[in-house]
């Protein structure tokens, strides 16, 4: 249940969005033709069913596509020649053949016909019967030389009829309990085929029963608000394919029965509106279903729907647009002679009395439109509902065509609204005027005002329609924008023609977040029927508001341009720690030199003292030890220097140990020798 309403809602939505207007349907136009060329683009088709869809669409729309012929005809002949083809394949092959006229041999068709007759007599499923009967009808149309008439037409009729349900729908086969409207369409088409293939007259009572079934089926048709009728099936088939199937069946039946089927013209017109309301479908099958159904409706024997359409529902008083109406068939062909009357027109908002008298539209033969040269003087700007009546000239046409009686169309009449006496002023609290400035709202203004919180701002202007009446646009806004981009919008109210807005700053202090400063003033006036809707900057006002108390609300923070958040950041380079300021090199070197002085002084002093080496042992062994001792000391000192330069402590200590032992030994010898010599000297 929920899905049903949902579905209906959505299709309604789609109808609104896809339809050109809620109440206006347009017949097929060139945009359909160009869309068809885009949609069916393949040179060769996957299957003959798809080929048929494309070819039929091109045929209806009058598009010529010679290049597909060769490959398609080849597969047609192949399918028809093959003895394994199912009735469905034969059906579509014959359909393609009827369009392309591939020149199939009579013998082939004869063979097919006899096979199909056997299928018809023995089949139990609706689809088999449908395809077989359909193929036989096609053969009958293509050549009169092959005998396709059914011997037991009554029997076949009955067997198909046996699958019908009480609500007008059909089952697919006797074992399948599910009934379907799509199947009903197929069945009715098949029955119409049986009637045309009957060798002897079919029992009229059965045809009468069939007509009642059709009426019952049409009782279950669903309706949209905009007047479109359709059939829907929840499973398998979309509304479009279901409705297309029923239309095919209905038109086929109407073509073979002599009496008129009792289907109200309103419903036929509704079905036509449904197909037209889809706009341009996006896939092949939907497009084919739409175009094929419309072609069936164009020349059906029940009643041909005539569509009333307006090329434009927006009329401009300034451009002195004329009201044009076109009445034609669904495929855009011209209608029989008729008159279009504009019965009444009233404002969309109120269903008051009509503002105009009933008048006829003049028919312009060249353009095919019914035209109202000049809109009645009482029509001012606004949105209206125009009610049209279509009257056929020839009363006999009324049995053939259906016009739908009255048609309601939404029309917008636009015009230029006059803006006068615009002025902006700053008022004191006692209503006396402090500053007043005139505004020219047709052009740019840049007034500069200033006010404090005890004063008021008044903006006033007058709006009149082209006919001089008062006009209340849908959008009349006065916007104040602070420097920090905080905005405040006010609706300007009116009494009659005069629009006035008084901003009492004392009461608005809180709303303005106590922000003082320069506010830009902007006025926007707009309406659907106003041709000169505008958004104008008026100027700016410097407001002096008191300080915000503690509990006041904070103004909203200004919007940040998102592009600024995404940007490269400033480069950072590290500032290295400055090393300590060291003395200049030459100072160090100078002192290094200075340090040599004491050494030199020492050496010089030694020489002055008259040092000698007299105590140096003269004999060889002690001399050697002596030398070795000093060499050892020098070696240790050199070792120390090496240690400072590059050795580590462990190596140094190792060597030191070795040298130390050596030095001890040697030192001991030389020193003991020196001690003994000096003691010898003492004792001596």
């Amino acid at each position: 249940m929920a899905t049903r309403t949902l579905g209906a809602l959505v299709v309604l939505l789609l109808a609104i969005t896809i339809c050109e207007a809620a109440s206006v349907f347009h017949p097929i136009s060139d945009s359909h033709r160009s869309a068809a060329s885009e949609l069916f683009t393949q040179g060769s088709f996957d299957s003959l069913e798809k080929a048929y869809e494309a070819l039929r669409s091109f045929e209806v729309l009058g598009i010529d596509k010679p290049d597909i012929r060769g490959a398609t005809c080849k597969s047609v002949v192949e399918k028809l020649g093959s003895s394994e083809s199912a009735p469905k394949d034969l059906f579509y092959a014959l359909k393609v053949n009827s369009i392309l006229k591939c020149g199939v041999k009579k013998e082939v068709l004869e063979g097919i016909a006899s096979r199909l007759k056997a299928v018809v007599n023995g089949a139990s499923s609706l689809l088999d019967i449908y395809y077989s009967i359909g193929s036989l009808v096609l053969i009958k149309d293509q050549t009169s030389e092959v005998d396709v008439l059914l011997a037991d037409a009554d029997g076949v009729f009955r067997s198909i009829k046996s699958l019908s349900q009480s609500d007008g729908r059909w089952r697919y086969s006797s074992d399948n309990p599910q009934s379907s409207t799509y199947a009903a369409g197929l069945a009715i088409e098949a029955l119409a085929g049986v009637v045309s293939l009957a060798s002897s007259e079919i029992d009229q009572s059965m045809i009468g029963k069939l007509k009642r079934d059709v009426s019952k089926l049409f009782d279950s048709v669903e309706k949209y608000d905009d007047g479109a009728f359709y059939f829907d099936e929840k499973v398998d088939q979309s509304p479009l394919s279901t409705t297309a199937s029923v239309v095919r069946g209905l038109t086929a039946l109407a073509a073979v029965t002599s009496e008129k089927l009792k289907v109200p013209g309103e419903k036929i017109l509704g079905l036509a509106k449904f197909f037209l309301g889809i706009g341009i479908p996006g896939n092949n099958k939907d497009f084919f279903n739409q175009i094929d159904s419309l072609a069936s409706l164009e020349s059906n024997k029940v009643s041909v729907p005539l569509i009333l359409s307006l090329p434009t529902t927006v009329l401009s008083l300034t451009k002195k647009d004329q009201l044009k109406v076109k009445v034609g068939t669904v495929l855009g062909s011209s209608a029989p002679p008729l008159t279009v009357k504009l019965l009444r027109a009233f404002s969309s908002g109120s269903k008051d009395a009509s503002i105009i008298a009933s008048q006829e539209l003049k028919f312009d033969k060249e353009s095919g439109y019914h035209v109202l040269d000049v809109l009645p003087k009482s029509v001012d700007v606004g949105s209206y509902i125009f009610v049209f009546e279509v009257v056929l000239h020839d009363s006999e046409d009324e049995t053939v065509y259906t016009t739908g009686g009255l048609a309601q169309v939404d029309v917008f009449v636009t015009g230029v609204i006059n803006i006068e006496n615009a002025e902006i002023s700053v008022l004191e609290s006692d209503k006396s005027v402090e500053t007043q400035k005139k505004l020219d709202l047709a052009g740019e203004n840049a007034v500069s005002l200033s006010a404090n919180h005890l004063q008021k701002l008044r903006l006033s202007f007058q709006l009149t329609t082209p006919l001089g009446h008062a006009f209340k646009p849908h959008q009349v806004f006065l916007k104040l924008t602070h420097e920090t981009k905080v905005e405040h919008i006010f609706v300007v109210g009116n009494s009659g023609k005069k629009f006035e807005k008084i901003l009492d700053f004392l009461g608005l202090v809180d709303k303005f977040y106590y922000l003082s400063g320069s506010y830009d003033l902007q006025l926007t006036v707009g309406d659907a029927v106003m041709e000169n809707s505008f958004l104008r900057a008026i100027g700016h006002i410097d407001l002096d508001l008191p300080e915000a108390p503690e509990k006041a609300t904070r103004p909203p923070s200004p919007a940040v341009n998102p592009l600024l958040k995404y940007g490269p950041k400033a480069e950072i380079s590290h500032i290295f720690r400055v090393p300590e300021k060291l003395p200049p090199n030459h100072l160090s070197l100078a002192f290094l030199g200075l340090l040599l002085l004491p050494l030199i002084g020492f050496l010089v002093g030694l020489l002055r003292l008259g040092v000698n080496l007299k105590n140096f042992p003269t004999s060889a062994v002690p001399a050697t030890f002596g030398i070795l001792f000093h060499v050892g000391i020098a070696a240790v000192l050199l070792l120390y220097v090496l240690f400072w330069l590059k050795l580590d402590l462990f190596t140094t200590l190792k060597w030191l140990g070795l040298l130390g032992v050596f030095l001890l030994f040697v030192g001991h010898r030389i020193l003991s020798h020196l001690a003994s010599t000096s003691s010898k000297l003492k004792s001596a």
Partner: protein
Amino acid sequence: MVKPSSSSSSTSQDALALFNSLRSAYSATPTALKIIDLYVGFAVSTAIIQVVYMALVGSFPFNSFLSGVLSCIGTAVLAVCLRIQVNKENKEFKDLAPERAFADFVLCNLVLHLVIMNFLG
């Protein structure tokens, strides 16, 4: 000793007289001791130059400064010790052979210089 006659020139005369007596007394010291004294003077002057340098530029490689100054002062101290021990007029060290003192001196200096080299950086 000459007694100063007037007070105005007494201090300068005293200083001069003192200096002269010091000089004459000093020249009596044996050469060996003079050598040691000279050595000590050399060490101390080196130390003073380093301190002046440090006062000028700051003590940036403080370890090097300490090492340099310490090598001078250390070796000066050791030389003074040697002088005391070698000086024949010192009664305490009569029994100590001067060679022994010298051996100590050498050993201590070598250790001192090792430490200095390590600390020099």
